[in-house]
């Protein structure tokens, strides 16, 4: 009886998301049939999607635009991860570093990534470096704060265990403190990926030869709403894909956290 109830529940849980997506699709179709000029329908968007391959925008086909955006995000993020997590460990572990950087971080952290765009463009122009740097500066503070918060979570008794079993400072840090903080660090990485992705698209919208953000702008300026939607759907799909990949990676890196 209980089992049967469970299996019914499982089926419902599988069907509900499908219904939710269907609702969006139906809403889209309804809205686009009612206002064809404001909103292109799925068929039109699909045709526009095909045309991005036969008739490349700015001489770059869609995967090229996706790669242009992804590359910027990845380069910016890799630097932000290395420096941000490193600094976060220092801030969380070392009181002196915390005293120096703590208040600065509290001040810089609430600045939304997009707010850095005008400053960075003023400093470095609108080239490739600026876009990478915007991703970097837009994500690093969150990474530092998440990492240091995770480090501070470490139970004092676990550090005592490290001391009793003869660990030196470095061993206690790498074997006990950092692994304890790993789930928090991972939460920071996930946030950094989604906010990095948002930021790069915004930065590209202000001017770029290639990239999904530039597709949005080109579609907007050319009154090509179908192209805007192709870009927006690609942004959503890549964002979702990154998030799925990250949760898979988290299961590999922090297996104890899934129990």
């Amino acid at each position: 009886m209980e089992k049967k109830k469970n299996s019914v529940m499982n089926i419902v849980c599988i069907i509900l998301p499908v219904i939710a997506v269907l609702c969006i699709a139906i809403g889209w179709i309804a809205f686009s049939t009612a206002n064809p000029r404001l909103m292109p329908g799925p068929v039109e968007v699909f045709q526009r999607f095909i045309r991005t391959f036969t008739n490349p925008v700015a001489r770059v086909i869609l995967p090229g635009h996706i790669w242009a955006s992804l590359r910027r995000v990845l380069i910016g993020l890799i630097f932000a991860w290395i420096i941000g997590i490193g600094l976060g460990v220092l801030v969380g572990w070392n009181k002196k570093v915390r005293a120096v950087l703590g208040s600065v971080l509290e001040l810089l952290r609430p600045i939304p990534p997009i707010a850095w765009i005008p400053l960075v463009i003023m400093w470095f122009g609108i080239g490739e470096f600026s876009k990478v740097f915007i991703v970097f500066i837009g994500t690093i503070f969150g990474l530092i704060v998440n990492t240091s918060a995770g480090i501070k979570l470490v139970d004092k008794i676990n550090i005592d265990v490290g001391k009793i079993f003869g660990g030196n400072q470095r061993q206690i840090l790498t074997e006990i403190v950092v692994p304890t903080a790993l789930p928090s660090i991972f939460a920071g990485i996930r946030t950094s990926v989604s906010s990095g992705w948002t930021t790069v698209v915004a930065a590209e919208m202000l001017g770029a030869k290639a990239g999904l953000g530039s597709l949005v702008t080109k579609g907007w300026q050319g009154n090509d709403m179908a192209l805007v939607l192709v870009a927006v759907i690609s942004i959503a799909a890549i964002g979702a894909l990154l998030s799925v990949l990250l949760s898979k990676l988290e299961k590999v890196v922090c297996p104890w956290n899934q129990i």
Partner: protein
Amino acid sequence: MESNMKPKLEVKNITKTFFSDKGAFQAVEDVSFQIREGEFLVLLGPGRCGKSVLLNIISGLLEQTSGAVYFNGQEIHGVNPEISMVFQKTAVMPFKTVQQNVELGLKFAGMDKKKRAEISEHYINLVGLKGFEKSYPPQLSGGMKQRVGIARAYATNPEVLIMDEPFGQLDAQTRYSMQNEILRISAEEKKTVLFVTNNIEEACSLGDRIVLLSACPARVKEIYDLNYLPKPRDIVSKEFLDIRQKISDNTDLAL
């Protein structure tokens, strides 16, 4: 006879006072006792009476205000590799497998992987966790986690083992079975053990001798020799109940 038995560990006139904004707080007052080689000594005292403070001083995690700790006749300061500890809140690392937890001290000492695996296998078997080497602590019960803590402490092969209320967080049933386990393990691997508890029955069933502490600040009230009772002890025998009653009457109530 007592005089020619060399003490393994000697605690001499230990006093610990904490100073804070609210003033001074004395946790331990002039505590002295000796632990003989191979002895299972129980430190019994009411809850929150400064037992853990005393242990942290002996293990080297805390500095005493005055007094000294002697190990094999030498005064010691700080953490000593020959003194290991089983912690009150188990304190096993949730992110390490059972085997990795047991190997912690060996890894810190720089021992190679193969040798570590041999030693950890022995102690994992000793505490009855064979088959759980690759499990993570969140998958284990409270009693099993403390078995990991015990194996971890034994694995570094210390001369003295300190056990800080190791079964305090377990339910009564598991507690009884763990007490039997610790008797079996300490009979198999002869070590000098300093076992701390607030449970009189636990103290009487495990201790060769019992050091009874007062309520805060901790002072030595009396030392009982239970060597005349062979282990494992029958906890409903007359001798057992008598000594239990005697200690119970002499115990301060915890606040």
